[in-house]
């Protein structure tokens, strides 16, 4: 006999967990299905946790969740082959009672989040893959099929938090195939170092303080991409990601990119003598606002990466996942309380809620960015190198007079882009993309 639930949530990542938690907490009968052996077994992220999104779901999370370090310093490095030009921002104001950003390791974090979902009363099954949606005669989604023996599982609404490469929605025709120009491939190593070494190398006071470094320039070997280095309690997460379409064009294997980064003279000393414990790869939706698929229909909703909710300009993703999960869940809970069906018309409230939140506002703000970066790869390669050259000539003391140096620097800049007009146009493009 088929079992019926108020809601079935596909996936136990940040989006699925947020959705399942909020609905279960509100008293709905919720079934959550995860294909990994445990929640988090298949989930990959840098990873930075933005506290606000989680705090709105589980206010007391800081007392329980496995967190690594809170971020007290942010660095942005522009790399060329041998140098980095950096901007560092460190503030004691980040040492607050309720810090805003944390580094996390997703496996333990997701297991904790999933345990909260179970505590909230949801039925959770892992190691089970949802293979398809079940529809009624009117084409409404009424449940899911899995890769296990047994009758289909039925629900009033199916929340798809199945991640960037979710097959259920794609097979069901709810969203198109991923476009290689709209998705990045990121690879990451977790490199073990003792707590003391991490603190020493990054000038950290305590075991809870952390540093985040965003890397641009040579790290992507001419492709559209960036790198990152995050300090965890006893390890460093080091990774790099570029558009899949660029990997296809250049045929550079992703691990080669990561190996290059590890050998970079600015990075190598930070990870020296570390033991690589984990090597992972993951796709990141980078298509932005215009790649967002349909988000709701009769009996179904899409949350998180499956809905392309990533703000690549600000490296936000898991917070958007949690927020979309929460808003989807709140929509369903409200419909239940009002005694309304989970029809496409009623579930459209979810889209409205997103539009009113920072989620869609931010997604729309950076609407042009993916296209501009894809068509202007030089933005991420030419400028870091030109800036590095300029720094070199500026800092070297020799018998060239300063005015001549400045002229040379400007000349190099102009040359790098083939004329001031191009530089002006680049600035304009970026300004428009950022507006």
């Amino acid at each position: 006999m088929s079992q019926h639930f108020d809601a079935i949530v596909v996936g136990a990542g940040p989006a699925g967990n947020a959705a399942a938690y909020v609905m279960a907490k509100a008293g709905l009968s919720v079934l959550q299905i995860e294909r990994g052996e445990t929640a988090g077994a298949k989930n990959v992220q840098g990873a930075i946790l933005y506290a606000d999104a989680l705090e709105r779901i589980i206010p007391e999370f800081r007392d329980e969740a496995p967190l690594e370090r809170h971020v007290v310093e942010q660095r942005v490095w522009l790399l060329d082959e041998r140098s980095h030009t950096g901007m560092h921002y460190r503030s004691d104001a980040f040492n607050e009672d309720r810090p805003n950003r944390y580094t996390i390791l997703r496996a333990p974090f997701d297991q904790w989040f999933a345990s909260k979902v179970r505590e909230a009363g949801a039925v959770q099954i892992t190691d089970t893959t949802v293979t398809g949606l079940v529809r009624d005669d009117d084409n409404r989604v009424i449940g899911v099929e899995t890769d296990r023996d047994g009758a289909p599982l039925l629900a009033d609404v199916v929340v798809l938090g199945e991640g960037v490469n979710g097959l259920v929605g794609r097979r069901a025709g709810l969203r198109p195939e991923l476009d290689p120009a709209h998705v990045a491939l990121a690879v990451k190593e977790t490199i073990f170092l003792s707590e003391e070494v991490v603190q020493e190398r990054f000038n950290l006071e305590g075991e809870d303080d952390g540093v985040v470094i965003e890397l641009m320039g040579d790290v992507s070997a001419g492709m559209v991409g960036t790198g990152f280095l995050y300090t965890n309690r006893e390890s460093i997460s080091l990774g790099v990601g570029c558009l899949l379409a660029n990997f296809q064009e250049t045929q550079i294997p992703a691990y080669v990119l990561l190996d290059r980064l590890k050998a970079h003279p600015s990075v190598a000393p930070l990870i020296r003598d570390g033991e690589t414990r984990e090597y992972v790869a993951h796709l990141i939706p980078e298509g932005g606002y215009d790649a967002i698929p349909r988000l709701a229909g009769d009996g179904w909703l899409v949350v998180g990466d499956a809905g392309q909710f990533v703000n690549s300009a600000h490296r936000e993703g898991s917070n958007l996942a949690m927020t979309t999960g929460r808003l989807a869940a709140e929509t369903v809970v409200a419909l239940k309380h009002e005694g309304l069906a989970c029809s496409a018309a009623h579930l459209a409230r979810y889209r409205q809620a997103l539009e009113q939140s920072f989620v869609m506002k931010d997604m729309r703000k950076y609407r042009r960015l993916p296209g501009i970066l894809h068509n202007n790869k030089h933005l991420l390669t030419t400028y870091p190198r030109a800036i590095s050259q300029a720094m070199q000539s500026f800092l070297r003391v020799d018998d060239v007079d300063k005015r001549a140096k400045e002229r040379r620097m400007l000349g190099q800049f102009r040359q790098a882009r083939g004329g001031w007009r191009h530089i002006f146009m680049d600035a304009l493009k970026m300004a428009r993309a950022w507006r």
Partner: protein
Amino acid sequence: MDAVYDQEPDPNEGAARGLNLVVCIKQVPDSAQIRVHPVTNTIMRQGVPTIINPYDLFALEEAMRLRDQYGGEVTVLSMGPPMAEEALRRALGLGADKAVLITDRRFAGADTLATSYALAAALTKLGSERPIDVVFTGKQTIDGDTAQVGPGIARRLGLEQLTYVAAIDMLDRATGEIVVRRRAEGGLQVLSSRLPCLVTVLEGVNEVRRGSIDDMLRAARAEITTWSAADAGVEDLQKCGLRGSPTVVKRVFAPTPREESAEMVAVDHKRPKQIADAVLDLIFAHQPKLEAQLEAATRREVSR
């Protein structure tokens, strides 16, 4: 579907009449993912995922096959910290009927002697509700590797002891007879014995099933029966945990890695003969003596 159900006995009735099978399982760290701390030389358990001891899964599957064939029910039993509940839940998801966890601070630090004592007490309690026909364990655990707990339980409960079992050929509850194949040095033994008995199961003797969606839902919702030492009917706490464990770990050390690492011979577009030559060259480079011996032997052959 209905017609099939009609012919089958009422499952509850079947359970009462059928076999009472108990499988002892242990939650262990996934040894494939364990690391030794580079500085302190201790095992780093933090963050290492836990699994059901893989050998126990074959025992569970063997028990479920008997249940499916003869009727009855399979109970999984484990001693461990409260988090061992996860392992029991996983066993329910594979198709076990009931789960019992015995957990008590006073069980902590138990060696095989103390573990078999506590498990034997819990089995006695389970058996007092309805006599147990067969107790199953895996052949050993992957963290301790002793293979002592199963035999320890059998000795304490006075059960016939069938270790390293590769297959159960026959079980007759009416006559109380069981016939198994047991792997022994130099071959297989076919043994006939009496119920109740204890069977430790070899790895790879069956293919562990994937539970149905109903099993998974039942497991997710199940309340795991949890017994303290007192609940389990443990009489002598002196025999439990660290106090009841005469085994002492004298030293833990990481084996030094071999200095030489494996060398690869690229296949590329080489012909088999070329690959063979390349492999031989590599071997001879490391074992010049071997090359000389072989050459001498070849010369003798030729001169003969």
